[in-house]
C-alpha cells in the first residue's frame, strides 16, 4: 500500500492538492476571509485593487471574501445532499435486492419512471411545488440523484445476494439491517466509494446550475452558482470576475474526478 501511494500520478496529486486547499477554505473561511460574507464594504462593481483583490460584487460586497465563503456554503451543501442521496439510494438498493419480489419490483419501476424525466426538468417541476428554498433544493436534488445511486447499488447488490454467505446469513435468521451492514456493505465498498466521488461532482454541478438559474441557494448566502448569476452583467463589459466562481466549480469537479480515477485504478489492481 505504501509503495503504491509512493507513486501518485500527477493528475491525482493535483486533485489532492486542490481538494486540500478547498478544505482549508471550507474549515477556516471566517479566519482567512478579509471581510464578512454579507458585509457591504464599498461601491458596487469596484475594479480589482489591493484592498479588494477581485473587486466588489453587485451589492458592494468583497468578491474574494464571497469566493472563500462560497467554498464553504457550496461544498457543504453538495456534501450534505450527496450523503442524503446515498442514504436514499443505497437503502432502496440493498433492501430491494434482499427482499426481492414485489418490493424490488415497485422500487425498480418507480426509479425507471423517475429517471425517464430529464433531471433538471423534474427538479424545476418539484421546485415549483415547494417554492425555491434551500431545504427544498437539497431534498429535490438528493431524491433525483438518489435514483442514480439506487441503480448502481441494485446492480452491485444483485451480484452479492446470490452468494452463499448471504444465503447462509439469511438461513441463520439474521435481520435485514444486519445482512446489509455485515455482508453486503463490506463487499460493495469500492464501487460505492467511487460512486460517492462521482455523485458529489454531479450533485455539485446540479446545485450550482439551479443556483445559477436563481432557484437554488437564496441570497444573501454566498454560493458560486448564484454569484455568477448576480454578477453576470459585468461580463458584457469585458470583466472576467464573474467567471471566477464558475472556474472554482470546474476546478473542484475536475480534481475530484482525477482522484476517483486514481482510486478506481488502485482498487482494480491494475498496474500501469
Amino acid at each position, binding site marked *: 500500500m505504501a509503495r503504491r501511494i509512493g507513486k501518485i500520478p500527477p493528475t491525482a496529486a493535483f486533485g489532492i492538492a486542490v481538494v486540500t486547499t478547498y478544505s482549508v477554505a471550507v474549515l477556516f473561511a471566517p479566519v482567512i476571509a478579509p471581510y464578512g460574507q454579507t458585509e457591504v464594504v464599498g461601491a458596487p462593481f469596484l475594479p480589482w485593487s489591493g484592498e479588494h483583490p477581485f473587486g466588489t460584487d453587485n451589492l458592494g460586497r468583497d468578491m474574494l471574501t464571497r469566493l472563500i465563503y462560497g467554498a464553504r456554503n457550496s461544498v457543504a451543501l453538495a456534501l450534505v445532499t450527496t450523503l442524503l442521496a446515498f442514504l436514499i439510494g443505497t437503502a432502496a438498493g440493498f433492501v430491494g435486492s434482499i427482499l426481492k419480489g414485489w418490493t424490488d419490483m415497485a422500487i425498480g419501476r418507480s426509479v425507471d*419512471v423517475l429517471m425517464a424525466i430529464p433531471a433538471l426538468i423534474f427538479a424545476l*417541476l418539484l421546485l415549483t411545488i415547494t417554492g425555491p428554498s434551500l431545504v427544498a433544493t437539497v431534498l429535490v436534488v438528493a431524491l433525483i440523484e438518489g435514483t442514480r445511486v439506487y441503480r448502481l447499488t441494485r446492480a452491485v447488490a444483485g451480484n452479492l445476494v446470490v452468494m452463499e454467505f448471504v444465503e447462509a446469513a439469511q438461513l441463520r435468521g439474521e435481520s435485514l439491517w444486519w445482512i446489509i451492514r455485515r455482508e453486503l456493505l463490506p463487499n460493495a465498498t469500492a464501487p460505492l466509494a467511487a460512486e460517492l466521488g462521482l455523485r458529489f461532482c454531479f450533485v455539485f454541478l446540479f446545485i450550482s446550475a439551479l443556483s445559477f438559474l436563481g432557484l437554488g441557494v437564496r441570497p444573501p448566502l454566498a454560493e458560486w452558482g448564484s454569484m455568477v448569476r448576480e454578477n453576470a452583467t459585468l461580463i458584457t463589459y469585458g470583466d472576467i470576475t464573474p467567471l471566477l466562481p464558475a472556474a472554482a466549480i470546474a476546478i473542484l469537479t475536475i480534481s475530484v474526478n482525477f482522484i476517483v480515477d486514481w482510486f478506481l485504478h488502485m482498487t482494480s489492481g491494475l498496474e500501469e
Partner: protein
Amino acid sequence: MHQLLGLILKRLGFGAITLLVISVIVFSAVEFLPGDLAQQVLGQSATEETVAAFRRELGLDQPSVTRYFIWLADVAHGDFGNSLANGQAVSGLIAQRFANTLFLAGYAAAIAVPIALILGVLAALTRRSLFDRLINILSLGAISMPEFFIAYIMVTLFALKFGWFSPLANVTPEMPLGTRLWATLLPALTLNLVVVAHMMRMTRASILSPMASPYIEMADLKGITPLRVVIRHALPNALAPIINVVALTLAYLVVGVVIVEVVFVYPGLGQLMVDSVAKRDMTVVQACCLIFALTYILLNLTADILAIATNPRLLHPK
C-alpha cells in the same frame, strides 16, 4: 423476425406506460400546490362567491380523477389551459418558443453529430496516440465544467474580445434563415463543446469493442481487406451503440439548452420554464415539463427501437 417484432412492441408498450405515468405525475403537481389555487389567483380580497365561481370555471369542484382525464383530453388537443400569472393561453405562449428550442437543439446536433462521429472513428484508428489522449482530457473537462462557465467563456472570447457575435442570441420569427443561423451560432457552438467530447468517446468505444472480438481476427486471417473487415464485419455490430449515442445526445441537447438559453437570453422553452418556476406559474411549468419529458422519452424510445432493429444477432435468429 417474429422475435424482433415482439421486442419492439414490448418496448413501445413500456414507453406508452411511462408516458402515461409521467402525465399523472405532471398533473398531480398542481394538486400538491399549497393553498387553494382559485384563492391564490384571485387574491385575498376576492369574495367567497367569486372564488366559488372561479373554482367552477377551472373545474376545481370536480374530483381529481375526473379532472385528470379532462386535462389529458385537453392536452391531447394542444390545450394546456391558461397561465396562472397572466391568464394567457399556455399553448400560445409555448408554440413559438418550442419551435425556437427545437431549432437551436437541431442546429447544435447538425454540427455535433458529424464532427463527433468522424473524430470518434479517427480516435479509434489512432488508439493510444496523443490525439486519443487529448480527447480523453477534453471529455473529462466537458463533463466537469458547469455549462454556464463554458457559455460565458465563449461569450467573453468570441462576442466581446473578438466582437464576431452578439452576446445575446435574440431571434424573431420573421428573421431570415441566414441571419438566424448566424445569431444562434454561439449558443449552438457552446452546446457542441458540452456534448462533442462525450459523443466522440462513446463512438470510439463502440468501434473498438467489436474490433477486438474473435470474428474480426478470423476475418483478418481469411485475408479480407481491412476496409471490408470494418464495413462488413465491425460496423454492423457497432451501429447499435452509435445510434444510441446520437439519440441520447439529441435527447440531452433538448434538455441541455435550458442553461444555454438563459445565458444567451434566447427566447426558448427552457427560458420560459425557468421564469415560470420563479413565478410559480404551475400551468406553464406543467406544459413545459410535459413537452420536455415527451421529447426526451420519444428520442430514447427511438434509440432503443433502432438499436433493436439493427442488432445483427436479432436479425438472424438461430
